[in-house]
Each structure stands twice: as C-alpha cells, then as structure tokens.
C-alpha cells in the first residue's frame, strides 16, 4: 500500500506541506508506506498540447515530470496538496495536472485512491478543491472515504475526500485543530478505502 503525497506549493515548510505530512503520518500509522515530494524541487514544463502522447502513450517532454510519472504509476494512492492562488491551484500544480494527459487515454490512474488538500488565505478554497476533485474524477481515481466505524464526533471532523484549511502565515495551520482533524481523518480514510478496494477487486475477479 503505497501513498504518494505531492506538495504543490512554491514554499518549503508551508501550510500545505504541514497538512500533507499529517495525512501521510496518519496513513502510515494505519499501515501505508508513504513518500512526500515537493513539486518545487522538480522542473515541470507545462503541457505543450502536441497530443503525441495519444499515439505513443508517452510524453515527449524530457523533464522531471518523467520521474513523477513513475511515482504516480507505482503508487496505490495519491494526495495532492496546493495552496490557493487566484481561486485555483498553483500554476505549479496546474502544470503537473495538465501533463497527466498522458495517462488519460488508457486511464492509467484508474482506481488509485485520491485525496485533496487545499489551503486558502480567505477565498477560493472550494474552487481549488473542485479542481482537484475534477482532476481525480477525470482519471477515474477514487476519492478516499471513511469506510470503517466512526463516532459522530469523528464524522464531524472529516471533510470527505480531502482537507480544506484557511491560513495566512507560514506554518499557522499547526494550531488549526479543525484542519489537523481533517488531515488525520483523510489519512485513515485512504488506508480504509485501499483495503476495501483490495478485497473488492479480488471478489470482482
């Protein structure tokens, strides 16, 4: 059970990174193997719309996205975290999302479990959250769901498929109990969804 966390903030140690780490820590506690990457450590050009991938199944742009493609494919679950810039995910996140067009035709990300983490200063969080949900849906990924028993309090603490937090100063989200609760719930939900899919896919065969 491999979970990849992708932080799409240009900043290191920002609120998005804090929350993605919390999701991963929680998932690890429940049995997942995790890896976190910061997209700002990678050089990713935007998609150039050549559409050659529709024929070859490969992207001809030879940059660090090739490394991330491999990470996507070997993961069972993926958490994408982005701060909100202008009512959407960052340009860094958008470049990565656009480049996944290579996976679309054969739905190579199908049935991977997905979680979204969005941090806004004041507005735009729902638009960015939808953007990530649409991205997952387009690839036929499965949003993480809390499958096992939960108390009413625990259910109140989860967002359903992700985390939305409001924060301005770097690291401020560390004091945000609601966001921390959502992140921990998401980590657990990812593992539960993965387990359900594993047993379900055996039955489906």
């Amino acid at each position, binding site marked *: 059970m491999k979970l990849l966390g992708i932080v799409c903030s240009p900043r290191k140690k920002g609120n998005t990174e804090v929350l993605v780490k919390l999701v991963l820590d929680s998932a690890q506690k429940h049995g997942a193997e995790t890896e976190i990457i910061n997209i700002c450590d990678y050089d990713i050009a935007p998609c150039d719309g050549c559409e050659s991938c529709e024929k070859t199944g490969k992207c001809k742009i030879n940059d660090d996205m090739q490394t991330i493609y491999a990470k996507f494919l070997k993961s069972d679950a993926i958490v994408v975290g982005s701060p909100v810039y202008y009512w959407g995910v*960052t*340009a860094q996140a958008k470049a990565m999302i656009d480049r996944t067009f290579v996976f679309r035709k054969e739905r190579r990300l199908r049935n991977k479990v997905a979680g979204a983490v969005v941090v806004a200063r004041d507005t735009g969080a729902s638009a960015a959250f939808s953007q990530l949900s649409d991205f997952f849906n387009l690839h036929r990924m499965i949003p993480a769901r809390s499958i096992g028993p939960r108390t009413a309090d625990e259910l109140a603490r989860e967002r359903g498929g992700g985390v939305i937090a409001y924060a301005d100063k770097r690291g401020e989200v560390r004091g945000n109990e609601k966001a921390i609760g959502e992140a921990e719930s998401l980590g657990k939900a990812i593992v539960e969804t993965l387990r359900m899919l594993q047993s379900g896919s055996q039955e489906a065969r």
Partner: protein
Amino acid sequence: MKILAVAGSPRIKGNSTYLANVALDEAEKLGAETESIVLSQYRVNPCQGHDDCGSFDTCVQKDDAPRILDKMCQADGVIIATPVYYYNVSAQLKAFIDRSYFLYTHGRKPKAKVIGLIVVAESSGIEDALHTLGQYVDETFVKKEVFTVSGYAGRCGDAVSDIKLTRDASNLGRQIVEALR
C-alpha cells in the same frame, strides 16, 4: 487606442489563439493598435510565493512575465484567451495569473477598462475557466466592462471553420473598440 491579447494556449495556431487574433483583426480594422502575446512563446515561470513580495521593487524572477505585465498595464483594452485544460485555464495562463500577484502587492492596477475573455473547450469546463478568469479580472482591473466569447472546438483548427465562433470573436473585437470610444 491599444488592445493587447494575452493568449494562454501552448499552440500558436490553437483555437483560442485564432479567436483572439480574429478579435484583434476586427479591432485593428476599426482603428485600434493591437498586439498579441502567446504566453507559450515566452518564459513565464510560476510565482515563487515570496512572503515579502511587496518589498521588492521588481519581481525577483528575471523572466518575461514582468515585461508582459507592464504591457498589460499600459493597454486600453485587454483580451485574455485560453483553451480549457482539466476544467480550467491552461498552466501557461495560470502561471501568468499567479505572477500578477506582483501587481496586487504593489497596488498597481492596469489602466484597461474593457476586457475580453475567450475560452475554448473540447467538451466541458468552460464555466470553471470563466469563473477563474472572472475572479482574476475583478481582482486585477479597475472599472471595467467585460465581454465574453466561449465555445467548443475539439481539434486544433476546428474554430476556423466554426462560423458562429469566428463571428462572435469578431464582434468581441468590435465591442471592445466601441466600449473604449
């Protein structure tokens, strides 16, 4: 009267770029001075999110974005065109939008009071892209009138044979010139 088009397509001859050029051609016929900038032909990196952006005299990143932002500030009319990628604006345009944060932190407002938006999708996502652009325009420009053209075109070049879309784009160019007069 200067009208600038900022095109977010990775393609020089993409459908949204074509429609932006149709709008500019019409505006030029009516006497405007026009310029088209296809972002993919320039280097516009994503914003690096510096906390202290407002304290810098010029953007820390030495690429083409500051120059294009300056041009946008000086134009009387601005057209923003994008294809829809993953239910929203292209990554190229999103990088440019994010870099406009420098204008925000420096209290700079472009002088353009008339804006044209052009969005072309293969099958869906026009609304989400227009939402992003609408919010961007609200945040970035002062008094404005906004005209919009949107439609569907699957393959590169399909808009050229789309009589309605082409006419809409031409009308957009005229509407911008008339609104500026």
